[in-house]
């Protein structure tokens, strides 16, 4: 078996942080892979909710979009989208939310709106989607994002989604009821907020990553926890399960669709 890629490290590390039976609001991409890996390994009764309204879904292959038919077919039930946000998310019925972004700052605030000025951006990004309210209402959130000086920045071009705001307890002054980012899983390891300052600090490294690599990848002076753990490498079972999931997914997505010509 080939060694784990950094994507696989990230996915496995994120999956391990999910408790069985937790209710998880899943995003497309790495979070979707991580949540389903958890479900297929140590968390068989995890409840996965995609924002398309599919609740308790158990897809055999990863969806490309947030609303592939696979998600509806394997769901316990499907609700209208407004209900997802009102009854489940704002209703406080979601334990864990997963977020990605184009930029993150040291307090876990996220930008997925624009690079540059809002009115005349150099890069227009897809926008907020569910993120601001996932971040506000889920009991805790995980951010998955590869690190570079362009993505881990001193100052966001636009704050789409609040993490800990200006830090040092600022979040508690808002009416957000969720706890905010518990961890940022990136391609060298894991950051977590300092209990007092809320500033993200390095708490764990992947076995083949170094502190220097981490510092180089982050666009602000990276704080380091008093103890930096080493993330145990993906097990054979984890890797095999993840790779089989991806293989099934590739095969399914390549399957030609019969055009519905009359």
């Amino acid at each position, binding site marked *: 078996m080939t060694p784990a890629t950094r994507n696989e490290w990230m996915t496995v590390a994120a999956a391990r942080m999910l408790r069985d039976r937790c209710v998880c609001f899943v995003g497309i991409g790495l979070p979707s892979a991580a949540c389903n890996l958890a479900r297929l390994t140590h968390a068989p009764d995890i409840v996965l909710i995609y924002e398309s309204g599919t609740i308790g879904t158990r897809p055999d292959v990863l969806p490309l*979009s947030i609303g592939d038919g696979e998600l509806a077919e394997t769901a316990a039930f499907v609700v209208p989208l407004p209900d997802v946000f009102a009854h489940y998310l704002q209703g406080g019925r979601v334990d864990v939310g997963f977020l990605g972004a184009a930029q993150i700052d040291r307090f876990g605030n996220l930008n997925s709106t624009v690079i540059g000025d809002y009115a005349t951006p150099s890069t227009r990004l897809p926008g*907020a989607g569910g993120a601001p309210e996932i971040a*506000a209402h889920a009991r805790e959130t995980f951010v998955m994002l590869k690190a570079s000086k362009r993505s881990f920045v001193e100052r966001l071009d636009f704050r789409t989604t609040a993490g800990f705001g200006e830090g040092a307890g600022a979040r508690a002054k808002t009416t957000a009821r969720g706890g905010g980012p518990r961890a940022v899983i990136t391609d060298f390891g894991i950051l977590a907020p300092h209990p007092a300052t809320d500033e993200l600090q390095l708490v764990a490294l992947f076995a083949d990553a170094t502190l220097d690599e981490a510092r180089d990848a982050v666009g602000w002076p990276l704080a380091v926890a008093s103890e930096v753990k080493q993330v145990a490498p993906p097990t054979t079972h984890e890797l095999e399960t993840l790779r089989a999931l991806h293989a099934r997914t590739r095969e399914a997505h390549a399957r030609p669709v019969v055009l519905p010509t009359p």
Partner: protein
Amino acid sequence: MAFLSLREAVATHVADGASVALEGFTHLIPFAAGHELIRQHKRDLHLIRMTPDLVYDQLIGMGCARKLTFSWGGNPGVGSLHRLRDAVEHRWPRPLELDEHSHAGMAAAFCAGAARLPFGTLRGYLDNDLGQANTRVRRVECPFTGERLAAVPALNPDVTFLHAQRADRAGNVALHGIVGAAREAAMAASKLIVTVEEIVDALPPAMNGIVLPHWIVTAVAHCPGGAYPSYAHGFYARDNAFYREWDAIARDRATFEAWMREHVLDTVDHAAFLASLAKRAA
């Protein structure tokens, strides 16, 4: 309620400058309706849709839109909507005004529209820049607790287009699977036009299912495959490969325009559009 061809429905009910919502969340996206808007060279549309998707990339790239109300504008699982980006970043083919929300905010706006309330309320837009970027996000104070909550103005499109699995001969429309904000967008609209996979004598029993009754429906157009390359649960799957291919088609203005000409402008209707793709694939 009237049974019309899609061409007739668009010609009769969509004026230049209208606010138009083509809803459906990944599933049941009314592509055929979007293409017909392009074929008929509709202009200055205010497009409304939570997730603009390829169909709005096409409408924007073809110059049909002056304004976009949305909450997430990407090619799901693939990347950017290049035509949307080009319109915002370079004002090509024309400037595009943005009315930008989060999903929760836009869902609340559709719900308010469906209930004919002037605004929707949510605990949202907290401590972020969206509320500044969009002056249509305001605050309302709870008269009981004093808490300040986000308020969004109701969305009431002039015309909502949906694609659904079935209509019966009275014009009752039934849909199932992932429904997104389709029901709310339907109830919020002044006019509702629905393309359907099939027209049947009697809808399948669905006591608590999602039905849009005939007197809410302005027109039904029989349009098999009307959601392709999106999908219709029980009829055909999402063409994920096409969504990937779109990235290359839309990235370049000339490639995009050539594709739109060949497959949309030069096809007479949705059946011909599908046939043109089948020919290409063969």
